[in-house]
């Protein structure tokens, strides 16, 4: 059988190691494999590794490799391939955008044909998770093949053709070590507009479309929703005139009727964020926290108490980047206006917005972001938003920064988890952020498709089935 999947953007390249590019990943996830993998529910399991890695010392992790795996071009997958893959990504000359994930890796050493040691610059408890992100390439093909245009991996699907701008086709890998997948070939179509994707699905051209709007779940033949990687949140400027008062910040959290928003905006396909912006599927998520209640009376009282009535509050955001971003921003601004603050929204053009989010200028009172965590580990989101030096952080809490740094090098999983719980509790109590929702990914499907999407948002064709 063949299916057609409509994805939002065309890969800019098919080189799996250089770009941080959603379109590229959606295709290459089927061609390449990684040492570690995740189950559809997010549990970290060995992939090309034969078993979970062992920590040899504080900075060395040892991976045993699966035997008998072959690349599509016949090259064997072995320690050399891993070393070549790792070295290529971290080679500064390649200037890979994925270094955000692999910055801690110092080197890879071959132990024997099926054993590799990965050495990190410091203690790195997240390394196994990181290796879930690094695709393994064939060393020979990397030298003289066309990695960017005609990829060769070990995965269940082989590259077939790519008409730039139009479509890209993969065919099943009959020799796949995990068994030949059910679907024979898959065609990707690149359709930016959600409306166009939907119409393609409705007209029967597509079998799977990504990012279905919640409103359309009733219109499509079939759909599947799964909690996704993105959490929407407002980061509050804790040093700003008005928002430096914790009472004000608390009021901002209490003013919002998250349930109504989830129902109204997302038709229920959004989970209320529980006290922080950490993804519930991620390691380190604090299950004990509850979402902030909706209590507009108290919020008003708090604002009055803080003497902030009529004070200006500028809400910064963008439009069109994330699901219903503007809707969320404007809805929240509406709730906040009810507390008595003088709220204005500033929807910025994206590059300007990025500057507001991560630039050196003064921090906005509140800035919207839909944060995503591909590694499903709390470290990244905490460093990004809670750590005072984090790119999107708006606080100057040195104590919190220390806690985050401690957790980052703690290799004992239980201890690390406890640390993260504390950090989240602190962030929650001090109202550093206004977390909104953990957004669900919704996929539209044609009648004949059978598929349960994954929490990590990977489009694994080998997990799909067609009933005819």
């Amino acid at each position: 059988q063949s299916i057609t999947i409509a994805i939002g953007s065309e890969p800019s390249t098919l080189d799996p190691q250089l770009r941080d590019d959603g379109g590229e990943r959606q295709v290459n996830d089927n061609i390449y494999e990684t040492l570690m993998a995740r189950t559809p529910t997010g549990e970290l399991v060995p992939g090309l590794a034969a078993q979970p890695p062992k920590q040899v010392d504080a900075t060395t992790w040892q991976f045993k490799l699966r035997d008998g795996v072959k690349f599509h071009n016949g090259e064997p997958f072995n320690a050399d391939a891993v070393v070549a893959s790792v070295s290529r990504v971290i080679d500064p000359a390649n200037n890979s955008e994925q270094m955000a994930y692999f910055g801690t890796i110092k080197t890879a050493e071959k132990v024997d044909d099926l054993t590799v040691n990965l050495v990190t610059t410091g203690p790195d408890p997240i390394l196994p998770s990181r290796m879930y992100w690094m695709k393994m390439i064939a060393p020979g093909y990397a030298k003289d093949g066309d990695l960017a245009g005609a990829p060769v991996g070990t995965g269940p699907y082989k590259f077939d053709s790519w008409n730039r701008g139009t479509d890209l086709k993969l065919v099943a890998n009959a020799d796949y070590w995990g068994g030949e997948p059910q679907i024979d070939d898959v065609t990707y179509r690149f359709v930016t507009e959600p409306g166009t994707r939907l119409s393609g699905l409705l007209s029967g051209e597509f079998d799977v479309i990504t990012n279905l709007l919640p409103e359309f779940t009733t219109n499509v033949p079939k759909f599947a929703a799964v909690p996704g990687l993105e959490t929407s949140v407002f980061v509050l400027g804790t040093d700003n005139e008005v928002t430096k008062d914790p009472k004000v910040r608390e009021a901002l959290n209490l003013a919002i009727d998250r349930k109504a928003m989830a129902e109204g905006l997302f038709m229920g396909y959004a989970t209320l964020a529980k006290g922080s912006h950490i993804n519930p599927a991620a390691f380190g998520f604090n299950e004990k926290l509850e979402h902030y209640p909706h209590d507009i009376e108290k919020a008003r009282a708090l604002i009055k108490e803080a003497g902030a009535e009529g004070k200006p509050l500028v809400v910064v955001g963008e439009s069109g980047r994330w699901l219903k971003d503007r809707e969320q921003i404007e809805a929240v601004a509406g709730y906040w206006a009810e507390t008595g603050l003088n709220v204005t929204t500033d929807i910025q053009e994206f590059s300007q917005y990025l500057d507001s989010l991560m630039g050196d200028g003064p921090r906005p009172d509140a800035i919207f972001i839909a944060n995503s965590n591909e590694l499903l580990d709390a470290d990244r989101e905490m460093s990004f938003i809670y750590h005072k030096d984090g790119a999107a952080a708006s606080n100057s809490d040195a104590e919190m920064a220390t806690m985050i740094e401690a957790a980052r090098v703690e290799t004992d999983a239980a201890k690390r988890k406890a640390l993260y719980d504390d950090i989240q509790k602190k962030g929650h109590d001090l109202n550093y952020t206004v977390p909104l929702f953990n957004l669900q990914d919704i996929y539209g499907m044609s009648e004949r498709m059978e598929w349960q999407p994954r929490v990590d948002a990977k489009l694994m064709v080998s997990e799909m089935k067609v009933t005819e």
Partner: protein
Amino acid sequence: MLEFILRRLFQGVLVVFGVTATVFVVTRLVGDPVALMLPLSATEAQRAAFAQQIGLDQPIATQFLRFVGDIATLDFGNSLWQRRPAIEVVFERLPNTLLLIAAGLGAAVMLSIPLGAVSALRPGGLVDRLTMSVGLLGLAMPQFWLGLVAIMIFAVTLRWLPTSGMGTAAHLVLPALTLALTPLARFTMMVRASMIDELNKPYVKTARAKGLGLTRILRVHTLRNILVPFLSISGWELIATLSGYTVVVETVFAWPGLGLTAVQAIQRGDLFLMQAIVFVIAFLIVLIGIALDILSKAVDPRMELN
């Protein structure tokens, strides 16, 4: 003739130079090229290296000369988005756009002449009023809207045609028709109006006095006279299509042409790619202009070529 082509080419060079100067002023003087062209995450070192690479440290005149030199050698730099030479991306997408335009404008031309002629024969008649109404609507309908409505009706409700993308001939139908409507309306009205004018000219009186039938007069006499203004108006439409309509239509139908690429390039802040697109289109427009002038000359021996 040769002199004419040379002169026309020279004017073309002036156009391209004008576009170059405009782009230079806009990107280098109005905007800060480093901020515009590098991603926000670029490091200071990268910024400095880039500034050096495009020669920002040099005097404006030198910068401009370099800019012109690069363009003359079709060196538009690497697309930031696609990480390969921008001109490569442009040449890859250009045929798709040309295909779309050929289909759309071709249909418009083929349909407009009979429609306009028939309307002109009976101004105020039923056919005429119908054509005029549709024409006026065609001129009033924004193409993006028309495209969406067409998708809603023909692709989703009736399921006759695919909604978007490129591939089979069926994929071409909706975008080409959407693209065709405005030019079709404009052409038809123009054919009709000039046909009516032309039919009132003295030479038509002569032809009638020669005892020729109306169809022969239309076919042999007036049609040829309409061709010259028709050529020039279709030239304008072609330019408008190339540099405007396609952007919208390709976006609506996810047609992988230059127009869609332009929108994506801007969304991704890929100014190099955008520049390359603008220049290639400008260049095409110049070529089209020359071709049309030569064609007009072939049709109308009176034309003074200048």
